[in-house]
């Protein structure tokens, strides 16, 4: 089995690669569309501003390769942070962009979801999550430490609540993870969430959707 981490020039791949190395998994970096099509499992990581990241995925034709690998061939994909936002329909960070469109919904500023005018944005730090039944496969079994590291100003608002696999509370109910078909994606950073994140990534490696 090969695990590939998509490199679109803005993600911090190192953190993700460090976690896979720690778990004994030899993940490869995917830069070309044909690399994406050759991997058995995919990770779409993310630090970056959505607009620019989406532009780069398109310029490198990685969007088409991801569509083919995930939607047509059914390869499991883990989206992380911005990676979760990019799979939505519409993104509103530094201008409006069309996302990959795998999950119906918009990515908007957290400030537009809250009634608290003094909420500190970005949502930055460790927060507790609430796990939905569809998220248990990835997120349960961690006992009392269901806390993960978040660092984001924008949040995914899916049209269909059934895709939500976990929620967190910050000024409003925010989506912490989504699951649909062979896609599992988190707003938090599992690769930066110590033991809790390590278990989640292990579960992704064993996932056979």
């Amino acid at each position, binding site marked *: 089995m090969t695990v590939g981490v998509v490199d679109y020039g803005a993600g*911090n791949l190192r953190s993700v690669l*460090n976690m896979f190395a720690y778990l004994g998994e030899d993940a490869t970096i995917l830069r070309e569309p044909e690399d994406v099509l050759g991997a058995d499992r995919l990770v779409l990581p993310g630090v970056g*501003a959505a607009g620019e990241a989406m532009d780069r995925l398109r310029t490198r034709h990685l969007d088409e390769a991801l569509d083919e690998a995930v939607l047509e061939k059914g390869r499991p994909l883990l989206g992380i942070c911005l990676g979760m936002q990019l799979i939505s329909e519409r993104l509103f960070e530094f201008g409006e962009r069309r996302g990959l469109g795998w999950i119906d919904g918009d990515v908007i500023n957290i400030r537009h979801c809250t009634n608290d005018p003094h909420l*500190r944005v970005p949502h930055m*730090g460790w927060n507790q999550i609430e796990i939905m039944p569809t998220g248990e496969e990835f997120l349960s079994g961690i006992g009392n430490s269901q806390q993960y590291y978040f660092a984001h*100003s924008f949040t995914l608002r899916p049209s269909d609540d059934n895709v939500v696999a976990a929620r967190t509370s910050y000024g409003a109910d925010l989506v912490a993870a989504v699951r649909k078909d062979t896609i599992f994606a988190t707003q938090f950073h599992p690769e930066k969430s110590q033991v809790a994140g390590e278990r989640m990534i292990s579960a992704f490696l064993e996932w056979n959707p």
Partner: protein
Amino acid sequence: MLLQRLIPSLLLRGGRLVKGVEFQSFRDAGRPETTARAHNAQGADEIIVLDIDASREKRPPDFEALRRVTAECFMPVTFGGGIRSRDDAARALDAGADKLTLTMTALENPGLIDTLAHYLGSQAVVLGVDVVRVDGRAMVYDHHRHEPALDRSVKGWIDEAIDRGAGEIRLMSADREGRRMGMDLDLIGKVAASCEVPVVAEGGAGTLEHLAEALHAGASGVAVGTMLVFSDNNLVKIKSFLKSRACAMRM
């Protein structure tokens, strides 16, 4: 509920960990990756790594030392010191940093904040503000001139940086650093109340009670340096104490 953060702060010089007093004298404190590993094992919520000479020496940061540190860290790493360009930022991320903190390089070139926020998102851009008190008045300290910057107020600079895209403030009381006299609670309270991004406070803590005071004053997190490097304090003990003082800690 979002938890408050306890953040060890590591200073790098020549690839080694050092600990200083008021940015003046430094003592060797070992290999940074060894310390980072211990902090990870003890559940540090995040870690700050600063190359303290890069900015002043006008050279790129020590990415190699950063890479050794991040390999040990399964919590977020904020890196700073000499980040001057988009290319420096890309290299720091490639070496495993999650967030970048800009202090002097932002003062010299405020547009760098906009550039990096557009490139990486605001959540990855942390403004470092070093503050000194002059006749009681809080002022931004210019490390290159070794004097307070007269043309910028603390509030004005922070507001400008947030407008430009900074997503967090690292508020350092430079004249209290390593002196263990307590943190500048008035400053922390005012800055936290006047801005709507997270504020991480550092400088002056000599007791665990001092850290609790800073969190109660409104800081989203506290960074600790001196207190960890040359003492028998450890993160588990500090977090237990802070929790007992009604701070929201991850245990």
